[in-house]
């Protein structure tokens, strides 16, 4: 009986040893680190997708700063071109109303809405392009939704990461360019 158990133990030992040796030959610590790194990066990327990009509560707090109906300050959420902008203002991140900050690229697709300019009381077509390829800017966050529609009306939805069609998908901030009159 003891002999049988001893043989079984030896067998188990050799199986375990072969298995460990095979694993050690075929993979290394670097392989594990690479896979763990991919997993961690994956986990970091997933939350960026594709809805509710940047805390609406924080955006709402920032919104309170402006005290006029329409601000002329393009670093404020109530600046007229931002009537349907949800995200971070590029004007607070080293860019302008129409230009992305250095190191980020303009999104290839966008959503286009209309806003009324209080100066001439005319409506303009505004293209909300995201700036892509840099991690999120912690500047002014806005949550405006004029004439926005839910996500199933994709072309009228501003909660989406419009960097999705770019090679570098990280969202940085949003610009608001006039592309015509309404």
């Amino acid at each position, binding site marked *: 009986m003891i002999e049988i158990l001893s043989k079984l133990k030896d067998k188990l030992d050799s199986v375990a040893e072969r298995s460990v040796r095979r694993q050690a030959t075929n993979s290394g610590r670097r392989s594990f680190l690479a*896979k763990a790194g*991919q*997993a961690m*990066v*994956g986990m970091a*990327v*997933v939350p*960026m*997708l*594709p809805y509710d990009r940047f805390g609406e509560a924080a955006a709402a707090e920032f919104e309170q700063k402006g005290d006029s109906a329409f601000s002329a300050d393009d670093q404020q959420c109530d600046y007229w071109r931002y009537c349907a902008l949800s995200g971070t203002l590029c004007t607070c991140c080293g860019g302008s109303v129409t230009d992305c900050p250095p190191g980020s690229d303009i999104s*290839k*697709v*966008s*959503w*286009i*809405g*209309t*806003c*009324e300019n209080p100066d001439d009381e005319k*409506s303009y*077509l505004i*293209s909300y392009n995201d700036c892509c390829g840099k991690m999120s800017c912690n500047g002014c966050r806005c949550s405006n939704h*004029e*004439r926005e*529609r839910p*996500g*199933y*009306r*994709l*072309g*009228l939805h501003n909660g989406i*990461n419009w*960097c*999705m*069609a*770019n*090679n570098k*998908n990280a969202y940085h901030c949003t610009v608001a360019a006039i*592309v*015509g*009159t*309404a």
Partner: protein
Amino acid sequence: MKPITLKFFSRALLPAALLLSAPTFANSNLSSIHGIADDAPVANKYALFCGGCHGLDGKGEIEADVPMMPPRIGAFLYDEEGAWYMVNVGGVMSAGISDQDAADIMNYVITSFGAESVPNSTYRFTAEQVAKLRENPPEDLVKLRRDISKRLEKRGIALPDHYPWN
């Protein structure tokens, strides 16, 4: 391990959303809902309703599975089912625009982006035609496009490049 990439989402979600959207507001009043005047220039309506994805130049974005329209978008009209296909594609149906606006925008598209490709330069979509073509949408748009493409290919007529589901 291959991590899930954003590319997957751009390839899967954007076209799916464009294709599956329902024609909720087919004949609603544009000025109140979208903030654009009913009599606004058709180029502006194209920009508002289509330009975000298709681009103001109509070239789309192949990386996002938005097909290119110029210069051959008008070639669809060589096929008897071409107009049916065009007014029922996801972008037109999900834009939430009236039959009249859809007709006007389709005419803008074929004259601005495909003037050299149409079989007949005087061809124009009408609101009545759009309404009728929308009554029975194709069951499978991708299959319909493939069928049209095959029929036209036999006649030596090419459709626009960069169709993602060829």
